[in-house]
């Protein structure tokens, strides 16, 4: 079901409120205890199983528990409203004296024409703001929507479409709706290069970046600009929320994003480590220029730029207000590519310039960036855990001593995991099993990302949900192999269990994994059929438009 902006804002507000509840402290304390109880259990010599699976299990669980504890810490530390007196005072004076405190209510009643040209002030000085919409082959209707919404943002600003797709159609559209159009002569360094080119040709004190699919709320500048009363502030990030929850991929990916923004990113404020995610973010031009523009040497320009700014001693803020709504990947192809890009970016930072050893960052920031950039190692944990049941089935090797009753292990295991479920229900209002499934089946993407980052291999970049048709099986190949492997292993395990008349936990676990991967493969299959059908229809009605591939943009 597509969701309206109001609905999204309401749920974001509810989560923000729930997070401040003391019960969250209780749940997280229990979860922390649970983590240590489980770890202690795993380390007991008496429960140790065969060396190989035991080591694998320990490595995987140790990583998961460490990441878990780091996130608990982040969530517990956050839960503080980043808006202080300075902010509110600046917000009241944002549109100069005559409008005063009720400015936003007055503006809402005004014509869009008027509201979007009201001058804004910071420190009593008039400011100029540019809104950048970097585009690269997205559908023209989507760009038009975004540009129109951007144009109607309250407060005096200039809107620019930064077209890397070099489309004359987009240029004509820009002219028609009266927004600025910038096309650079050489398309290099992807999005960062695009923005840097725009920065060289504009002069606003602040700039807001909106991806082509993000429709901004008119109050976005009203909510963010007052923070810049703090001279050390480099950027204000607002969440990436999506209104398309139409199928398996978008529903699962959406929830994954919500958890990240609502629970983690808001916690990072306290560490002064909230990082930029590339869209829905307002930058101070002088801060970005002081580090030589957006970091252009990587596809993950967003997090690199944040890192460089924090190194320079700048502050950052994240606010949970839903001020623009975009589109989450709807196809496995789009999802896989997006995840690959994010994970590769994380690994790049982890491998090239590990935040833990960056002297110029504060300890708080180092720990936070370390937690963020090491997150995608979870792919390896998932792989190791997937291997455990087959090891038991084919080699009779068990990670925990076979004399230990399973319920005991289950009890020890649950403290850590059940409390996380409780947290999800308490704060997010529910938990999506689909998200857990999707993050598990994504492990090959993360492992691939690791090796891409290691070997500095570049991946072609595409905007979310654009390139028309490609069989999803090109993207879920490894998952299909894993499914076949798990399925056959379950069959062998089943026959073995029938023969020995002993039902092992490994078999049940393996069957569950088979189900998860099987579900995913079925989703991929039905997506493939759907896309094929759609392509046939498009072919019949309109001519097939090709996305322009520019030299230097991709490899």
């Amino acid at each position: 079901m597509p969701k309206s902006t109001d609905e999204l804002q309401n749920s974001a507000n509810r989560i923000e409120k729930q997070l401040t509840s003391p019960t969250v402290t209780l749940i997280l304390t229990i979860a922390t205890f649970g983590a240590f109880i489980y770890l202690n259990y795993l380390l007991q010599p008496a429960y140790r199983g065969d060396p190989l699976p035991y080591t694998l299990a320990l490595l995987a669980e140790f990583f998961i528990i460490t990441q878990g504890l780091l996130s608990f810490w982040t969530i517990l530390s956050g839960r503080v409203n980043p808006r202080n007196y300075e902010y509110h005072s600046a917000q009241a004076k944002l549109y100069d004296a005559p409008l005063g405190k009720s400015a936003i209510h007055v503006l809402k009643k005004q014509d869009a024409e008027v509201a979007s040209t009201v001058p804004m002030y910071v420190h009593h000085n008039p400011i100029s703001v540019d809104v950048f919409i970097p585009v690269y082959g997205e559908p023209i209707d989507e760009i038009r929507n975004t540009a129109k919404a951007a144009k109607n943002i309250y407060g005096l600003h200039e809107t620019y479409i930064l077209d890397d797709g070099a489309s004359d159609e987009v240029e004509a559209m820009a002219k028609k709706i009266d927004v600025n159009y910038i096309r650079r002569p050489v398309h290099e360094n992807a999005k960062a290069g695009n923005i840097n080119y725009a920065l060289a040709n504009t002069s606003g004190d602040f700039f807001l970046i909106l991806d082509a699919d993000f429709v901004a709320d008119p109050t976005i500048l009203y909510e963010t600009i007052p923070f810049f009363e703090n001279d050390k502030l480099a950027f204000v990030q607002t969440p990436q929320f999506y209104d398309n929850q139409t199928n398996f991929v978008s529903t699962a990916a959406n929830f994954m994003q919500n958890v990240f923004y609502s629970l983690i990113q808001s916690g990072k404020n306290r560490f002064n480590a909230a990082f930029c995610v590339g869209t829905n973010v307002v930058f101070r031009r002088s801060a970005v220029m002081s580090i030589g523009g957006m970091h252009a040497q990587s596809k993950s320009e967003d997090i690199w730029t944040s890192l460089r700014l924090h190194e320079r001693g700048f502050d950052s803020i994240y606010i949970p207000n839903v001020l623009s709504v975009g589109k989450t990947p709807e196809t496995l192809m789009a999802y896989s590519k997006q995840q690959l890009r994010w994970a590769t970016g994380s690994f790049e930072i982890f491998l090239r310039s590990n935040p833990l050893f960056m002297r110029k960052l504060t300890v708080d920031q180092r720990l936070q960036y370390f937690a963020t950039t090491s997150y995608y190692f979870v792919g390896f944990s998932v792989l190791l855990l997937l291997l455990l049941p087959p090891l038991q089935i084919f080699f009779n090797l068990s990670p925990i001593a076979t004399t230990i009753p399973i319920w005991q292990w289950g009890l020890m295991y649950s403290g850590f995991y059940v409390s996380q479920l409780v947290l999800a229900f308490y704060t997010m209002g529910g938990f999506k099993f689909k998200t857990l499934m999707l993050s598990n089946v994504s492990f090959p993407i993360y492992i691939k990302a690791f090796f891409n980052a290691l070997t500095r291999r570049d991946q072609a970049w595409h905007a979310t949900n654009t390139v028309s048709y490609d069989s999803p099986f090109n993207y879920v190949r490894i998952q299909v192999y894993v499914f076949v492997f798990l399925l056959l292993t379950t069959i062998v395990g089943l026959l073995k269990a029938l023969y020995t008349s002993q039902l092992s936990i490994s078999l049940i676990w393996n069957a569950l994994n088979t189900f998860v991967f099987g579900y995913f493969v079925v989703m991929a299959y039905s997506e493939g059929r759907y896309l094929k059908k759609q392509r046939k229809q498009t072919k019949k009605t309109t001519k097939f438009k090709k996305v322009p591939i520019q030299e230097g943009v991709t490899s």
Partner: protein
Amino acid sequence: MTFGSRFRFIFGIIFVIAIVAALAFYLTGIMSVAKSTKAELDAASISIGTDYPGLVVKQNVEEGDKVTKGQVLFEIQSAPLNEALTSGTVSASSLPFTVSRTTNYIQLVASDDGVVDKINYRAGSYVPVGGIVATVYTVNSLYVTANFRLSPPDYARIDKSSKISLRMPDNTTQDATIFSISLVRNGDGVDTVVKARLKNADITDFRFSVGTPVEATMQLGKTTWYQGLITYIEQLFKPLGQ
């Protein structure tokens, strides 16, 4: 999907199936044998003693010494025997053991080649009536006692003709022939205790001392984990009523 990627896709699946086949083959291998939970060497021993009580006056061997058939191990001075001999109640030749002609001491000899296991009465001690002075492990009586924890279907797969091989502490292997299979309750389960005679082992070699811990591997019968599937398929192809 292009033809190339389709081919790669199918090749990958075949590769995965091959991996599972190899793993299943390995599983069949480890499931066609049973490994002992505990196994150690043992040997048949003979007791050496006398009906006449008396004093051990001479002890020619110590525990662990090799002995040959007919070797005099102990000499016992027995007052009752001496009396009986001098009074002529018994004659030396009618006794089941040899008696020294000069001293009338009872001579205890080894009835077979072997190794002295235990000495109960050392030189100077007094042997009561019917006392066992020593026990001797006889050569070629070496066997292994191995405990297995077998599942019911695996238990059905063994019999006395099953092959058993032993891995010695020095990593050499020995074949053995089963002569006894029994069940013993052990904790919360039942152990299958298998005794098997070693074919070419010499007890006088210290490597085969009684009590040596070994690892016994028993070959199981032909049926295995996929038997259920095979039986089911066989059922499918059987005409009704047969």
